[in-house]
């Protein structure tokens, strides 16, 4: 098993795909390199949240994804 990276909402347009796969382990620096420059730029800003293993990270730069983890990039939401 590897790490699944998901692009939610409008990020999937920016990433050009809905998901990608990465080899474990994956940290913040590794993620920024993987996702391409456009996504990396907005990801570095404070409007994108990061979830790993079903939990939103309080500090996304502390990402430490292991084999089998799902990493989700969560842009600003709009429901209701």
């Amino acid at each position: 098993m590897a790490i699944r990276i998901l692009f939610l909402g409008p990020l999937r347009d920016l990433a050009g795909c809905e998901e990608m796969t990465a080899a474990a382990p994956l940290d913040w620096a590794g993620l920024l390199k993987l996702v391409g420059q456009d996504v990396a730029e907005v990801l570095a800003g404070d409007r994108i949240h990061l979830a790993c293993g079903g939990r939103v990270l309080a500090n996304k730069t502390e990402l430490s994804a292991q084999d089998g983890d799902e990493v989700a990039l969560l842009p600003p939401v709009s429901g209701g």
Partner: protein
Amino acid sequence: MRDIRLLTEMFVPGALIGPFTNAHPGLGGVCTFVGEVRGDAEVAALELTHYEPLTLGGMHQLADRAEERFDLLGLLMVHRIGLLRVGEPIVCVSAAALHRRDAIDAVDCCMDHLKSAAWFWKREKRSDGWHWIEPRDEDHRDLARWG
């Protein structure tokens, strides 16, 4: 009674509110908000996506906070996902309480959070393609009222 649901198909709010109200004999008031896909000549459809591992859990956390903050007998929170047409309900929040203030404020508070602090993303189909919708500044101001 707490009733939190994500629905993938069209629903009829009245069919939820009747039983929800009846489930709380002795209540003083029930407040309900139903949001629908607004009619707009430009908009052909609305699509709501979510992040399944977080969505329902997040709605329950929101319900926890609402139940802590307001004196409620019951809380219903139903949100659509998937493809919706104009006139279809997107969201229905209903709160039953002994006093109207708790019921109205709970609905108001939950709606503000569902609008701009729950794990949903919304885009609408216009003649020139799909457009993502972000919360308006007003939505953020509304949310900030709850601290």
